[in-house]
């Protein structure tokens, strides 16, 4: 009686073929849609198919919406790609938010202080360099302390976010237009000095192209370069890295400078290309959403295209549902949560196999 094998037991799978792994993921998404549909019917009496259609409409309904979705995906992708090498090295850079802000602040400073004083081409160059340098410095500080005294990078990078937010708040007051409004408003609206060029009539195309190019470059850097190999070894086992003569401190600092610089680049695009202004909320939590994007993609920059697209699609779809059906804002978030839960949960079934007790065992 007591010697029976357990009713349900788990075993770790051997490597699963890619097609099968994707089959499981697809099945998880379908299941989550069914689950969402049932919930929608029970709670709201709406036709679930219509609700899903609305979600799709929200993201891709009009040409303008599609471009905005593309731009949002590109910005989230860029931040995620920035975090990728740090995460691969098991350095939990939660400071994306601050690194974007400080990059944006550097951009805005150049636009305000130098706009109209130097040729536009040079201005944009100065903006790019200073935004990337600012982001890099913001990431360098916690990396240096980690390398030198092994401080906790998670807390340190988080704290740097608050410093960056307050800095931006300070300069917003200094540069506010008109005085007393508490806002900077559109910078150089009449001269458009320091505005990044627009490709054709597509406002967001430049951002999207830059994000894709950086993604591909980062993939090559991480997969095929010696630096990429070193940071992977450091992430997997610091002792092994030291033992083969890799200078761990140098790798940590170098990788974080890269990570921060790409975050700073995101700040440049957000301020110089998308918004032409800066606020304390310009990073819009991308630094944190990117953490999820990076994990979903298992730190692979190319897969991040998919996972950032998924998250943005869900976000925009969810907000469309709440406005269209006058539902509580939270209902869209509930659906998003369910879908994400299924997708993340499917990774478990890719790793493990479930065995049920057979008769007579």
């Amino acid at each position, binding site marked *: 009686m007591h010697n029976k094998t357990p009713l349900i037991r788990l075993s770790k799978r*051997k*490597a699963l073929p890619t097609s099968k792994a994707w089959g499981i993921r697809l099945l998880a998404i379908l299941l989550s849609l069914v689950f969402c549909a049932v919930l929608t019917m029970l709670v709201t009496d709406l036709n679930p198919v219509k609700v899903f259609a609305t979600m799709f409409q929200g993201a891709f309904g009009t040409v303008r919406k599609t471009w905005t979705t593309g731009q949002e995906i590109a910005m989230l992708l860029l931040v995620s790609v920035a975090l990728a090498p740090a995460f691969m090295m098991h350095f939990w850079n939660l400071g994306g938010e601050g690194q974007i802000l400080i990059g944006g602040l550097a951009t805005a400073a150049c636009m305000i202080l130098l706009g109209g004083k130097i040729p536009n081409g040079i201005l944009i160059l100065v903006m790019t360099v200073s935004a990337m340098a600012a982001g890099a410095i913001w990431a360098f500080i916690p990396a240096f302390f980690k390398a030198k005294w092994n401080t906790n990078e998670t807390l340190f990078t988080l704290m740097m976010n608050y410093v960056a937010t307050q800095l931006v708040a300070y300069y917003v007051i200094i540069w506010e237009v008109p005085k007393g409004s508490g806002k900077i408003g559109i910078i150089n609206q009449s001269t458009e000095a320091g505005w990044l060029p627009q490709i054709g009539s597509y406002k967001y195309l430049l951002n999207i192209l830059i994000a894709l190019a950086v993604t591909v470059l980062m993939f090559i850097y991480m997969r*095929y*370069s*010696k*630096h*990429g*190999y*070193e940071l*992977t*070894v450091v992430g*997997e*086992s610091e*002792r*092994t890295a*030291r*033992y*083969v*003569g890799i200078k761990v401190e140098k790798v940590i600092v170098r990788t974080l400078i890269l990570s921060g610089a790409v975050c700073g680049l995101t700040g440049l695009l957000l301020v110089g290309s998308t918004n032409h202004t800066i606020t304390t909320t310009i990073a819009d939590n991308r630094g944190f959403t990117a953490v999820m994007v990076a994990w979903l993609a298992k730190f692979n920059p190319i897969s991040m295209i998919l996972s950032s697209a998924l998250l943005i699609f869900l976000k925009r779809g969810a907000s469309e549902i709440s406005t269209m059906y006058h539902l509580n804002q939270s209902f869209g978030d509930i659906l998003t949560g369910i879908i994400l839960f299924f997708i993340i949960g499917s990774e478990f079934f890719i790793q493990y196999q479930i065995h049920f007790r057979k008769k007579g065992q």
Partner: protein
Amino acid sequence: MAGISGSGQKELLEAIAGLQPVEKGTVTYIEDSGETDELIGKDPLEIAKLGVALSFVPEDRLGMGLVGNMDLTDNMMLRSFREGNSVFTDRSAPHDLAGRVVNELEVNTPGLSTPVRRLSGGNVQKVLVGREISSAPTVLLTAYAVRGLDINSSYMIYDLINQQKKNGVAVVYVGEDLDVLLELCDRILVLCGGRVSGIVDGRKITKNEVGMMMTKLGGKQDA
């Protein structure tokens, strides 16, 4: 090198390889030409360049020397990835090396792109020792190379070490099995409680004497 586990074997080897800070003493490397080099103060990379290879098999087997989640090819690259001026890594040579090690040491693996973590302990050790030997060291430091291995794999590793000796490589072998030490070694350094208990001739000494030295400095019995 003999001694009860934890008597300082690991620390001594790490000091030679430049991984442990040294308080006092010297480590001298004498080249065939008679030139000498002081190893203390050099970093691990410089020491490795002189041809000193450390293959240390720790208790958890993977903690040092190998990266569990990387495949065989990438692990072979750990020693050699810096070669060449290119920014990019060259995976073809390590891939061939991985193939050779798998063939010669009869490593049981589904393929060269299998993460090392998925291999059994013995096969992991063969990969590690195989890589260290392939770098053609002049000094091979190896600790617990047969820890947890079956008898067949153990003898294969002993053969490898003996071959290295025949090729003129200076081998420092830390072992637990005294019978094996007496068979393999020319000289045995016995450690006891972090101190050198004595250096003896492996061909003349008996197991009992080494055992006594392991438990007591100098090995002399009290009256």
